[in-house]
């Protein structure tokens, strides 16, 4: 009788696979790591060997330099590698460019480690692909019924409405540099905003990387060096941390916007001095999480990080055996 915990179980370094001798998204340096996506809490430097999609490996190289791992092996979506009878396949997770779920098969047992994921359309990455499995390992970042992300078109429309309403100000959108920033840019292009977007220097290399993988971001210019007059009435994108720094002084009376799933909670926006909260998340909301579990109906649900107790409660109410893994070290860099 094969038990799931024989195939994968938590260790201080992260989720470990004894028969294959590798970790998935370890938070410390290990010999062999399968990496689901490029966010810093999932992809760290210094592993002996890193297995990930070509996009994720490229992101790690941009962030950590060429020597981010002893060796790097690219796995395209759907490609399977085997090691000691364990087969690992990466399939799209819909979270950010190159994000993947790790499908681990061994002796007839299938476990899916979904990493971070979302179910709604994202023009900057490949959509989540459901895989039937015995155990589904899910995140729980927004696993409370209060988190129901509204449609992204509505959020972008609010931003553009505000830009039209305050032509004498500029709008500075705080967005995390990997994934969210490029998605906001792409969504603005789809909404018809074809003017130059001003970007913070910290975004430039990842923007170029996305373009290299075929995501057309349209005309971009550095905000540094632009005059107040040039920035008036324009939209700029910056890492959230830049909004409160002297960097933001170049903008005329800026409207501080912040694109994040956390902006659903008004007190959060207020605390952070955000004038225009945009509810845009790269994580599954409550409805997406529960719909995914209902759709896959796995034999067992493992919950990695976030609000485990609420999702476990939902599983309980819906007859799905669930367990919280209490993995440490994952924050929500992407939101």
């Amino acid at each position: 009788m094969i038990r799931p915990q024989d195939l994968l179980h938590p260790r201080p370094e992260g989720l470990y696979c004894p028969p294959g001798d590798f970790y998935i998204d370890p938070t410390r340096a290990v010999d062999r790591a399968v990496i689901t996506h490029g966010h810093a809490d999932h992809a760290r430097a210094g592993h002996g060997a890193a297995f990930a999609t070509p996009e994720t490996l490229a992101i790690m190289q941009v962030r950590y330099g060429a020597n981010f791992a002893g060796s790097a092996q690219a796995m395209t979506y759907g490609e399977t590698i085997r090691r000691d009878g364990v087969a690992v396949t990466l399939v799209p997770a819909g979270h950010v460019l190159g994000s993947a779920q790790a499908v681990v098969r061994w002796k007839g047992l299938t476990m899916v480690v979904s990493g971070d994921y979302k179910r709604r359309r994202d023009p900057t990455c490949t959509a989540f692909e459901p895989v039937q499995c015995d155990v589904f390992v899910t995140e729980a970042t927004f696993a409370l019924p209060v988190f129901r992300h509204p449609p992204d078109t509505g959020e972008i429309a609010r931003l553009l409405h505000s830009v039209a309403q305050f032509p004498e100000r500029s709008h500075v959108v705080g967005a995390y540099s990997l994934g969210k920033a490029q998605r906001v840019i792409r969504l603005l292009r789809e909404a018809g905003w074809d003017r130059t977007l001003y970007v913070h220097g910290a975004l430039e290399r990842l923007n170029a990387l996305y373009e290299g993988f075929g995501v057309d971001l349209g005309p971009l210019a550095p905000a540094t060096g632009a005059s107040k007059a040039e920035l008036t009435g324009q939209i700029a994108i910056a890492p959230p941390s830049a909004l409160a720094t002297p960097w933001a002084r170049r903008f005329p009376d800026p409207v501080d916007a912040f694109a994040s799933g956390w902006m659903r909670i008004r007190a959060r926006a207020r605390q952070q001095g955000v004038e225009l909260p945009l509810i845009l998340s790269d994580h599954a909301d409550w409805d997406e999480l529960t719909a995914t579990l209902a759709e896959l109906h796995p034999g067992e649900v493992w919950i990695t990080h976030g609000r485990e107790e609420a999702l476990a409660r939902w599983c309980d109410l819906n007859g799905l055996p669930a367990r919280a893994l209490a993995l440490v070290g994952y924050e929500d860099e992407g939101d």
Partner: protein
Amino acid sequence: MRAFAHLLDRLSLTASRNAKLTLTRDFLRETPDPDRGWALAALTGSLTFKSAKAAAIRAAVEARMDPALFAWSYDYVGDLAETVALVWPARPGANRPPELSEVVEALRTAGRVEAQSLIEGWLDALDADGRWALLKLVTGGLRVGLSSRLAKQALADLGRVPLAEIEEVWHALAPPYGDLFAWLEGRAARPTADAPGRFRPVMLAQALDEAIDLPKLDPADYAAEWKWDGIRVQAVSERGERRLYTRTGEVISAAFPDVVAALTFDGVIDGELVILRDGAIAPFGDLQQRLNRKTADAKLMAKFPAGIRAYDLLLDSETDLRALPFAARRERLEAVIAAHGSDRLDLSPIQPFADWDDLARLRAAPPPGDPRAAEGLMLKRWDSAYLAGRPKGPWFKWKRDPRRVDAVLLYAQRGHGKRSSFYSDFTFGVWRTDIGGHPTLTPVGKSYFGFTDAELKQLDTFVRENTTERFGPVRAVRADLDFGLVLEVAFEGLQRSTRHKSGLAMRFPRISRIRWDKPAREADTLDTLERMLAAMGG
């Protein structure tokens, strides 16, 4: 409902007055009647209904979802209306989402039970933002910081008419203000302002610049009187209707029944609301015990008896006096007070003076009694008509010189809008001796103005370089005997305060000078402030 919800959302996160004006004006322009009128009434507090009890709303949501999941959600969000708005299970196609006017009109006639089922039906049909606005509205929790003054300014901007014209008609109008919008959009004539008890727009004074203004003015043209330290009010008693208004037209009658009872005349008096004990004005701190309250009980009124010191008369029985010269209005005011004056209503005396030097001496050294606590002097041209707003020339306020102390910067907070990347709100303190006999700094006030943009940059840099601790948007800066930044703070008055550890609070403090040169240990002490307070008769 959607547009209203978005307006509420943006207003609640916007600190800038200009941005609030733009948001409100655009909403009023883009939203059809009667929704915009009801929204205006709701935002300015003219429309309050408590149709739903929080407990009933909570019970309704718990009947629709797992109570444990609800409890975790509520715990996480912290606000009941917002939690329910977010977790309420959608019933797509259940209903058409209601417009604000449908909600208001239905709830005005519905009983409690009926109201509850209406509300649940609307919650099914609305999206999260709409649910939030609805729940805030029906539980009486709409607080987004839109003063009626600001709403009226937005209306004036919308119709491109002077604010005074809005104020003139405002109290004759009722929600949803169809006639008001028709006028502002040029579809109808201005609505009539003839409603008994209405507010008349107030006349304000310019600040006097001694060097520039005085040489040009003839002392014989002007009357002088004290500017009492209370709040400016308009007391109306017209055709049986009695109301007390602030100078921006907010009705405060319910909080001052003792004052309203004293309005036995027939007319409109412009005066200063103060606490009057045995004919003497009590310190401003006493008046604060009566402000910002909805009502007053007998005990509070006995302890802090309010009254009016009258400056001017705008209406005498049926006669509008506003076009008459001040001298003529004053004569009629004296007659009204002679007939109707009481321990709650007295006359602000005219101060005779020979020339400007004479008046300057009076201002510098007021005689004992009430003038000691006055904010300064008012100069009014004897021939001035009573004009709305702040016309240039007829009235001047000649404030007393501000008091100044040297204080030490303790905390700085990030500003809003233009200043959101700057530490621009400063808390400062003075020295006192603690129980152990050691000198320690105690906060005495907070200010975010008085300095130039260039100085703001210097202050911001100082804060960033000398931060000792951070609490959210606030930074503590190093301040001890050997190091600290001394700020010269100017202020208009001092009062007792239980909210501050120092026991004192400043009125209108501003940073008048940054004393980069002055060592922190040489800043002022709490004793200095205590002596100032004593000298002001506090």
